[in-house]
Structure formats: C-alpha cells, structure tokens
C-alpha cells in the first residue's frame, strides 16, 4: 500500500533513531527523502 511513497522519517533520541526508521521503510519499498534524529528535550 505504501510502496513507492515518499516519506520523511524523524527519529527521537530516547526512542528509535532516524536511520533505523529509514532503513525499515526503505526495506518496505518506500523512498525516504529526508531522515534525521532529533532531541525534543
């Protein structure tokens, strides 16, 4: 359903890092146009 979609992946310091989310999404056929890990505190 999401294959081929463009996505932005924002990870979180105390959660899942951006590169990990991106890797999972790319494995599912999505195109990650931007990924980053942020710190919200």
């Amino acid at each position, binding site marked *: 359903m999401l294959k081929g979609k463009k996505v932005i992946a924002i990870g979180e*310091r105390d959660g899942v890092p951006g590169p990990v989310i991106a890797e999972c999404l790319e494995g599912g056929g999505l195109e990650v146009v931007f990924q980053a890990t942020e710190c919200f*505190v």
Partner: protein
Amino acid sequence: MNEIGATRQPIRIGIDGVFFSLTHVPDLVRFGSKPAREIAADPGLAEKLASRLRAFAAAVAYAPHQVFIGNLTPEELRECRQPWYENPLDGAAAKGRFGDLVDQESLYALLAQADQFKLVSFDAAWASAHSNPFVKAKPGQLKPAGEIAALCRKGALPLRSGGQLAGCFEAGHEEDVNLGADILLENLAAKATAAHALKSLCASLNVAPSEIDHVLSSSEEAVGDRYNRGGGNLAKAIAEEAGCVNAAGADVKSFCAGPMAAMIHGASLIQAGVCRKVAVVAGGSLAKLGMKFQSHLEKGMPVLEDVLASFAVLLSPARQGQPCLRLDSAAFHRVGAAASPQGMAEALAEEPLKKLGLKLTEVDRFGVELHNPEITLPSGSGDVPRANYRTLAALAVMRGLIDKDQMEAFVRQRGMIGYAPTQGHIPSAVSYLGHALEGLRSGAIRNALLVSKGSLFLGRMTQLSDGCSFLVERAES
C-alpha cells in the same frame, strides 16, 4: 574488558561535594533560542509569554526545584500533589542542602561582575534601588536611563526587570555574528552561573578556591572567534571568576553527556597523578530557556523553563568512607555501538556493571535523563526518565533477572521521577549526584549508576549518539 577492568583493583576517586544552582530569569526567557525565533515571526507572542512568567517566590516553591537543590528527596517528590506548579510548597527556602535558587537581580549583578569587556551596563537609578550582595559595579557599567535606551535602539539587548528597562547587553564586535550580543549574553550567563556554583561549592566544603588545580567545564556554549567560533576554554574564565588562581582549565563537551565525560576526565587526571583537586563545572544554558513555551501557553500553564541551571563538583583522591567515583567502571558509547534504546542501555548500563561483576539488579539507584515530565509532557515529548527506566527494566527481563510483571517495581525501586529543568547537559544523570552522595553517606543506598546520553546528531556532523556512565559508591577498604 579493558586493561583497567582487567586489573580487578578498584580505582576510586573521591567526590568531595557538589553544588547545584538554579537562577530564575523570567525576563531572559524571550532570549531563548525558540522564543527569540517565534517572537521575531510573531511579535504578539512576547506579551503572551510575559503574561505567563512566574515570580521568584513561585520558582522557589516549585517542588522539582526543591529536589534539585536538595531540600526534598526524589522519593518525597512522588508524594507531592500534581500539577506541581499549582501546588507550591509552604515554607520553601531558596537555600538547599547542596544548592540554591538565585533571583534575576542577583544574576544581573553576577553578569556585571563577570564582564571584562564592557558588554553589560545598567540604569544607575535602577541599580541603586536594587542593591544586593553581588553588586560590585565597575566604572562605566552604570549609566543614565536615556543612554541605556539609546544603546538598545542601536541593537543592544534590553535587560528588563519586571517590565522596566534595567540595563542592556552590547555586542562584542560590530560585524562578527559570533560576537553578537545574543551569543555573548549566552556565554557570559554560562560563565557567571558556573562560577557562582563553584564559589558556593568551595564555601560549602570550606575549600579555598586556590586549592583547586584544574577546572573542567562541560557547558555547551561555543565560546570563541576570531575566527575560531568554538575555540573554547570557558573553564579557565570560570576558574578565574571563582578565584581559582592556581588552576588551569579546559572544556570537555559532548552535548548532554558532557558533565559525565568531564567527571571521567577529571578523575583520570587525579588517578594519573597530574592533579590533586579537579572541579567539574557547567553553566546554565540561556538558549534552552522557554524551549517549550508554546505548549505551556496552549495548556494555560506558566512558562516553566525560566531557570538557568548550573553545577560544580569537586574531585580529589579518595578517602576512606567517602562517596567515590569508580573510575574502573567508566563506560563510553563507542562509534560502532548500537544507537537503539536497548543498544544504549547495553553499552552504558550493562558494560560498566560487567567490569565490576555486578548485575542490573545489584544497583540501588540509576541516575538517568532526569527531565521534569511536567515540562515535557504538554508538548508531547513524553516522560523521558520513565522511558529510560523502562528500557533498563526491560533489559533486566531479557537477562532473566526479573519477571516481566516486576518491571514497574524495578522502575519504582531503582528509579525516580524527573525533577531537572530541561537545560540540556544538566538533567543527564549528573543532576542526581547530590542525592546520590547523601544516600551513600547515610547508607540509604549502597551504590548508584549514573548513565548519561548526548545528542551528537543535532550538530549535523554525524548521525551518532553519545553517552558515558560510571558507578558511584562509598570508598571502603
């Protein structure tokens, strides 16, 4: 296991004491990174922000602040009615067992005292009406009100006091943005608040500042130029301001993990015989003020990020019976290590314990990211300490140390509610140190593992996180 761990000889460095300070600066919140940008985009926000700022008395009576300075324990905070900002503590004092709260006027005086470049000046009439123990005005620092207003029109930052223009802060260079008034105010605030913590620590321990032979600063500000914008050694400026005439200094930075990394560096200098007394300090982060002010305004709350937090800790060769840092437990998050919560917990909680032959369930308290959840929850940033404690508990389950249904008990017994202001490097483990020392001295706890993390990826130079950790215990034979 590294060579130190392989020797199996405990390496202990004494922790003589610690001092934590909170400087309440409601009129500087607008200069925080987030408020400054948002107000520039929507000037009407300034008035809304000003209407939700707290008075000093409210900041003193705020339960998490009382835990931070040592008048209340983290365990006692659990019993305090929430929301804490609506339930001020009766009889709360600005002086704590290992810290204090400082008001804005005193901070202004500290800035004036710490300024060697005629950056800050005050309205002479305002200053004479607000004299306090810190005021030692230098020639030219007190000016007529009209001159202050004129400087502000030319670009100086206005320093207000309850709506009144009390002074201003000028740039250190006309063209270099890295010496702009906003940057230098951040840097001088870090210097002044760290020096205050260090002086207060020396006074509380009856140690002459001249006895300290090295100061390490883990403040996060980039002090520098021309043209080394982060050249550094704020530590030496702090040492000078605190009267440490025999000290050298250097900065140790790693985002929020900086203070813990600096303590490991300082302890190593002592272990190597290079130094006898090392002070590790950090000043308050002005840029972090009001970081979540919009969420607080939306929820009808006071703007809770209105304090600069600073600390100082003194390390020296361990004496029998005193709280100490187990240098042989020190662990760092390595380049090749995983960055997932589990990977971080393995590297920073399991690794130091492995070196000492301990298990997660043999640690009485974990000091982790101790951000006050009352500040972070309204913005959707979650309860950071709880998330960290649950990760540790889950790891204990995976290792077969506890059952899954014992996770909550693990979190409650070995963790705590967050109480530290969101001041970057301050909440990250080190803010538990005061209570850890008290617990170790009284025997309430046998040990504590301090685990800090740093968000290196924010600087856009690497995707990596960072972190370091060590165990504290009493020095026994």
